[in-house]
């Protein structure tokens, strides 16, 4: 496996590239610029970086104002604060006005690790997905994160780009392009579909390897765009395999699993299992320990897949 890099590392760096390429990108953070890497952007372009202090509602509001005047603001902070603390600002100041604000908070999910449940955001995809006009991107690796940030910067309207703290293997080559509204088939198969996003793509690929040993050929989809969801792409895979496991580092309520269930319920009802955090808060621990504790490893996915196939 190649080197590991956190998706958050893509943020500051990509924003610098975007300004150098002439986009009107600015960044607003809330006292977490070192962790989110927007500080790197601030060092490169001090006049385009604004630290609001520990005030996430204001962070979103200031970004909204910058967008009113034609700038393309990216906001930082951690996922838990950017979406939860400032939800009404995201809803009313940004989405209701249809503004070009791009939320790209970091430290989403349980892989935040030792900071514990207060800081492990497991509801953000659900919160962002229901907002009219909001697009939700969950990149699987550093390269995809860069591509997602680029896509958000160059596509009008509000975006949510979910970034993580922990290092994850680099899956994609540098020529990777992020396609909105399109699932990516990372591994073709015929017996079951593993639809994953974010850090869970790595786990789904591991599960597919394990299942292959038993002669089960799993199709692995990287569902990096939760909204707009490529419902047809997922349904096409489901019609072929007739069983789907969704895999996300998020609550099983309201996130990828829900989005896929909604789509398949309408287009191609097949047996479905959802891997994710089961309606509980996170807890302190090392990322790898937590992945096992919450049942999010490749082994857990493989087990769920076998069970689903037995049921079918």
């Amino acid at each position, binding site marked *: 496996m190649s080197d590991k890099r956190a998706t958050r590392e893509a943020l500051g760096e990509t924003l610098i590239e975007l300004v150098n390429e002439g986009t009107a990108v*600015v960044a*607003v953070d809330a006292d977490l610029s070192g962790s989110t890497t927007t500080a790197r952007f601030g060092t490169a372009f001090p*006049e*385009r970086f*604004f630290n*609001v*202090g520990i*005030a996430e*509602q*204001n962070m*979103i*509001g*200031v*970004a*909204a*104002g*910058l*967008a*009113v*005047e*034609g*700038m393309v*603001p990216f906001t930082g902070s951690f996922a838990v604060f950017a979406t939860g603390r400032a939800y*009404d*600002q995201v*809803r*009313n*100041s940004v989405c*209701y*006005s*249809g*503004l070009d604000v791009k939320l790209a908070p970091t430290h989403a999910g349980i892989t935040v690790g030792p900071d514990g449940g207060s800081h492990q955001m497991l509801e953000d995809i659900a919160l962002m997905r229901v907002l009219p006009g909001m697009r939700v991107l969950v990149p699987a690796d550093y390269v995809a994160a860069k591509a997602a940030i680029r896509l958000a910067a160059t596509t009008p309207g509000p975006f949510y780009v979910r970034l993580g703290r922990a290092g994850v293997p680099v899956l994609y080559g540098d020529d990777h392009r992020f396609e909105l509204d399109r699932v990516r088939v990372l591994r073709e198969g015929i017996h079951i579909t593993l639809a994953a996003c974010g850090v869970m793509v790595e786990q789904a690929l591991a599960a597919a390897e394990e299942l292959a040993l038993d002669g089960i050929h799993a199709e692995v989809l990287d569902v990096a765009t939760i909204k707009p969801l490529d419902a047809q792409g997922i349904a096409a895979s489901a019609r072929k395999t007739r069983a789907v496991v969704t895999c996300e580092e998020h609550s099983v309520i309201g996130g990828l699993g829900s989005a896929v269930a909604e789509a398949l319920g309408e287009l191609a009802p097949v047996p479905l299992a959802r891997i994710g955090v089961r309606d509980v808060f996170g807890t302190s621990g090392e990322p790898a320990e937590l992945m096992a504790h919450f049942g999010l490893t490749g082994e857990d996915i493989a087990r769920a897949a076998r069970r689903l196939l037995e049921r079918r």
Partner: protein
Amino acid sequence: MTQEARVAAIEARAARMRHDIIEMIAEAGSGHPGGSLSAADIVATLYFGIMKHDPQRPGWPERDRFVLSKGHAAPVLYAALAQAGYFGRSHLQTLRKLGSILQGHPDCLKCDGVEVSTGSLGQGLAIANGMALALRLSGSTSRVFCLLGDGELQEGEVWEAAMFAAHHGLDTVTAIVDHNGLQIDGACSEVMCLGEVAEKLHAFGWEVREVDGHDAEALLATLSSPPVVAGVPVAVVARTVKGRGVSFMEGDAGWHGKAPNAEQTKQALAELRESLVAADPGQLSDAPVTEGSDR
């Protein structure tokens, strides 16, 4: 135009706006008359005495910006925009109705002249600050005015934004507090005491000016003079009377968010027509809100 004539023109505009406010809320059957009436002189002074703007070009880059943070006072903004010519006056009759450009709270995607959608209290000043930052970045000297309610100051985000404007030296921002002392549940002092608003804003790093919010001449002077110290944003605490101009609405929190019935509307409009005639004898006082050309 002499200063006296400028003030008289603003007073006439404000009188006409108050008449429009009651007419449109009565027609809608719901809305917020109290805080719209209290802000009428402030908004009239901004649109007809202070701000650079062009109704024919709502997106004119060099315009001054207005953010109505107390979005429930939408009728006062709509009255000003209609008078200025951003849209035809017949739209005033559609307030709060299905398909209208005049939503219950301002919607920038539906109505020309509305810079940003507001309505969820406490959010306007942060947005105004962001606009001022962007304008500074692009070398513009346009001013950004933000009108807040005093009850709205109970929202924490207002103080996050107040800190921010001072820290970043946003002296093109002017925050105006419509200090009428009342909110939905009663007197601010009883619901959640604001303390000394002027002192609080001063402590947050603002130059604070106190003014009679119904005195157009004083408002004109207060809003036109630049900050005493460059880099220090100006906050104007405007003492106002909720429901100003309609005798039975004045100082009564009960008129925060309800429409007058037919009888009350008749009385209110009679009173406002009198003020209108006094302020602007040349204008046909009982002209219907549908007058004027539609664009």
